[in-house]
């Protein structure tokens, strides 16, 4: 394989990986704070993809333009889900929460199936075949925009958690549940906010990803798994780790798809997971459990 092709594919993979990273970031935020494993994560992303798809089909609205409104809608969905159902499950055993989210995932998948049918669908934006040339590099416009959008959203989230009062309060809930209660924080409300933020993240990721991939109602579980692999690879609870893990997985998939057969590319993400669990169980940027 010529080096320039390999390089082009690698760059494309990293840009796609940033969107994966944003998706995983949502999972990481939810798990890091609420301590609930969102097994409906990929399904929630498919939901956002279908919202973007419908808006594009009906009003010809570019997914990138609709990024913020869709993220807001997903925020509301996540907030209500946590406030309405999941909050009453946080003291239940892990497997009980898991079953709840599996039920939610089944409902989402099949509601989408009823509404949109089983066929793969995508959007054709005007710039779908544009590309930028940088020396020997040729970068697809869609991938470039996708990568930039993903980094922007992730950056905004980072700033929110770091510098705003609400973000600080959420981190306090994550660090010390009892402590947060003692100083008078309404922990359940912050949990709902956090789940909303995680949902907004995955919603934004889904909207962006629609520029790159087809969507079918049943694709959710695969993305859920991918998000987990990325979060574990990058380090549970580390925001830069999620993005780094996403880029790594995106890069691996792209290069493996080029060198081997595309249908076997996901095997390489699983291989990364096994290697990480073997040699660095806390993840690349994760802190060792104390």
């Amino acid at each position, binding site marked *: 394989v010529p080096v320039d092709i390999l390089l082009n594919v690698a760059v494309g993979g990293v840009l796609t990986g940033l969107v994966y990273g944003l998706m995983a970031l949502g999972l990481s935020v939810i798990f890091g704070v609420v301590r609930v494993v969102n097994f409906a994560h990929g399904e929630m992303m498919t939901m956002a993809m279908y919202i973007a798809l419908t808006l594009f089909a009906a009003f010809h609205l570019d997914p990138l333009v609709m990024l913020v409104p869709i993220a807001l809608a997903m925020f509301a969905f996540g907030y209500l889900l946590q406030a309405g159902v999941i909050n009453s499950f946080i003291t239940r055993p892990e497997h009980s929460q898991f079953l709840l989210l599996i039920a939610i995932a089944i409902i989402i998948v*099949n509601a989408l199936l009823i509404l949109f049918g089983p066929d793969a669908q995508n959007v054709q934006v005007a710039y779908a075949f544009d590309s930028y040339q940088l020396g020997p590099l040729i970068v697809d416009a869609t991938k470039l925009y996708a990568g930039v959008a993903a980094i922007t959203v992730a950056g905004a989230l980072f700033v929110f958690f770091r510098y705003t009062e609400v973000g600080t309060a959420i981190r306090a809930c994550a660090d010390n549940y009892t402590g947060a209660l003692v100083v008078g924080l309404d922990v359940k409300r912050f949990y709902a906010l956090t789940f909303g933020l995680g949902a907004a993240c995955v919603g934004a990721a889904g909207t962006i990803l629609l520029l790159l991939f087809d969507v079918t109602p049943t694709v959710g579980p695969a993305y859920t798994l991918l998000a987990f692999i990325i979060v*574990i690879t990058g380090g549970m609870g580390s925001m830069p780790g999620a993005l780094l893990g996403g880029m790594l997985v995106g890069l691996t998939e792209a290069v493996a798809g080029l060198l081997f057969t595309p*249908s076997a590319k996901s095997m390489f993400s699983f291989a990364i997971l096994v290697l990480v669990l073997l040699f660095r169980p806390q993840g690349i940027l994760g802190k060792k459990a104390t």
Partner: protein
Amino acid sequence: MIAHLTDGVSRRALALLGVLFAILVLLPMIAGDYVLTVLTLILYFAYLGQAWNIMLGFAGQLSLGHALYVGLGAYTAAALYVHFGIGPWLSLLLAVPLAAAAGASIGFLAFRFRVAGVYFAILTIAVAEFARVGFDHLTWTGASAGLFLPVAQYVHNDLWNLRGHPLMFYYVLLAATVLAFIGCRALLLSRAGYFWLAIREDEEAARAAGIDTFRYKMMAVMISAGMTSFGGVIYAFYYNNLFPEQVFNISQSILIILGPFVGGVGTLFGPIVGALVLEAIAEGMRTLLAGLGIDLPGTNQLFFGIVLLLVVVALPEGVWPWFARRFGLAERKS
């Protein structure tokens, strides 16, 4: 030994168990083809649920990748039959150790490095997915185009080669479910069983008490995987076709664990009751929707999801513990 197994079980529970068994043995005589198919499915999931329950219910290790062991069992038996004409019971000699070895490798990876809880669950899904993609490219077993067992009209049931009427599969699965039930009861009463419960409740404390937690967790995953592979063998010979996309799919793993979850994790009746309840819901829904003339793909599954949600919210411990308390069947505390 048998007297030991029934220690502490209430008379009512034993009587119920006897009646249930009698019903299951006699039911096929009056049941039509449809009911028989549904019953076979219930037993299939009751058996697999029982096998899976050893991991989460007894030893506290959440596996979400049991489709891996079903698939390994199914593919081993089918490939040996198609390529070499070796019957399913003989291939168990290969299928069971193979599945147990796969379980042991996952366990080795996870338990040595203290990969636990969610991480362990993800690892099990990932390995199952790895196998799915792998088998999709393995031409010896037909790759993604599928592996097919020769089908013909069988005048006589050939139990040795598992070729014949669905009724035969029903009784084979009934026997397997009963044996699994008794086996699990025996396991729970064994030394390992008590160690498992200790690990499930508090692993640190178990280790502090001198239990070799690594060894006993490995034991749980290997027994569970080996048992599960037998379900796969039956799957292969019952359906006569295998596709990696179906057998190794995450949704298969989820179907296996829904039974014990709904029925009651860690209880012996849970997997059986759960399989029964879920299948009843699914079939009831199908009949209802057909009656209403609704024929949209996904409707059935949608309602299934909603009912599942309601069950989880209303009965956090599962159906069986609630039922047992309600009707005085709970095990006596010794």
